[in-house]
């Protein structure tokens, strides 16, 4: 019941999904994949509730036990529940919920990602100091692509954009294709291990 049945469900589910994909019958009454998709989506969002409860538990405990940065935990729990309740009442597109999303969450999100512009630049300088052939190749390509995409490249050296286009379409495609094929093969091997019941890490501990 604790290990065998979940393993059977997992194997059965993988087989059923594969079969329903390879032997798709375009029939209105037999939309098997649609049904499994809907089940998955429903399960996915039901599981997301766990995140809300777990975050609340962890941060309430942080406040109770006065762990480092516990003050921020109060803010996290209050804001999370306030925004969740607001969005539940109005939907996420409701006037106030959307206002908070557009004027509060989106700027934070965008700025966090924009912040990486500075760190990624400093990381490239650090990589350059490694002075290996591989690091030099990588940074040189990045530099050509970077400058070639902006109008500056062609102003400095005419034909820079052509060089960038060549790098992107020939050596880059070759390397990327090797990486992509490797990723797909790795993914397929991992999926096959799950389908054959060899990979059972998702069952967790021995209890």
């Amino acid at each position, binding site marked *: 019941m604790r290990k065998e049945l979940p393993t059977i469900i997992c194997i059965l589910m993988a087989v059923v999904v594969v079969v329903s994909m*390879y032997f798709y019958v375009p029939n209105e009454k037999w939309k098997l994949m649609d049904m499994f998709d809907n*089940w998955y989506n429903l399960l996915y969002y039901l599981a997301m509730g766990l995140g809300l409860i777990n975050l609340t538990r962890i941060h309430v405990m942080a406040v109770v036990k006065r762990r480092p940065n516990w003050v921020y935990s109060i803010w996290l729990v209050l804001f999370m529940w306030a925004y969740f309740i607001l969005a539940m009442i109005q939907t996420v597109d409701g006037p106030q919920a959307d206002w908070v999303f557009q004027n509060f969450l989106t700027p934070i999100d965008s700025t966090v990602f924009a912040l990486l512009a500075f760190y990624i630049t400093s990381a490239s300088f650090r990589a350059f100091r490694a002075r290996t052939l591989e690091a030099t190749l990588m940074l040189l*390509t990045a530099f050509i692509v970077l400058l070639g995409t902006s109008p500056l490249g062609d102003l400095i050296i005419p034909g820079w954009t052509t060089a960038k286009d060549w790098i992107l379409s*020939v050596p880059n*495609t*070759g390397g990327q294709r090797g990486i992509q094929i490797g990723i*797909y093969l790795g993914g397929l091997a991992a999926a096959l291990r799950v*389908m054959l019941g060899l990979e059972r890490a998702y069952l967790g501990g021995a209890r």
Partner: protein
Amino acid sequence: MSTDVGVWLQVICTIGVLTYLYKENWFWRIFEYAIVAGYTGYSLAYGYHNYIKPFIGEKMIKEGQWSFLIPLILGILLYARFVSGWGWLGRYAMAYMIGYGAGYTLGFDIKPLLGQIRASFISLTSINNIILWLFIVTSLAYFFFTVSKEAPAMKGLSTVGKWAVMIALGASFGNTILYRYNLLYPRMKLLFNTWLGLGG
């Protein structure tokens, strides 16, 4: 200078996050915790209105599609982890999701994989095609772990493959830098243009 409350809030958030460039500080932490809290609340509310409510309330109860009872029960079993000794019940839901994911990968990944392989069969009639083919073969050799890299042929192939991979990563790195600066530009536009009213 803008008098819009929304713009001011955006500016406070932007400056707050940018203070991290100096060092980790209390002002930054407010926004760090807010993003975790906000997106958790948002995702769950979004899921409720777009999936849980239509599937359970509309399709199952109103239209009588009782098959939704299966994922609903599985989903409820996930919460058994909060009852001591019954946490293992959540494995059923996990098993469904992992099995679905594995099946989905096996069903869908074959097509793009074959597409990549098919596109690699090119006629070696130009320098570009020769370089492309060479880089594909060598980069694959770099990821081929069945044969020892110490074997003379493999050593040479995987070394060239490493260069090919580095060029590919360099191109991705360059594009990532550009993308990040593209995100930074609207933030600066907000600060200098929309908020302070500088520039056109």
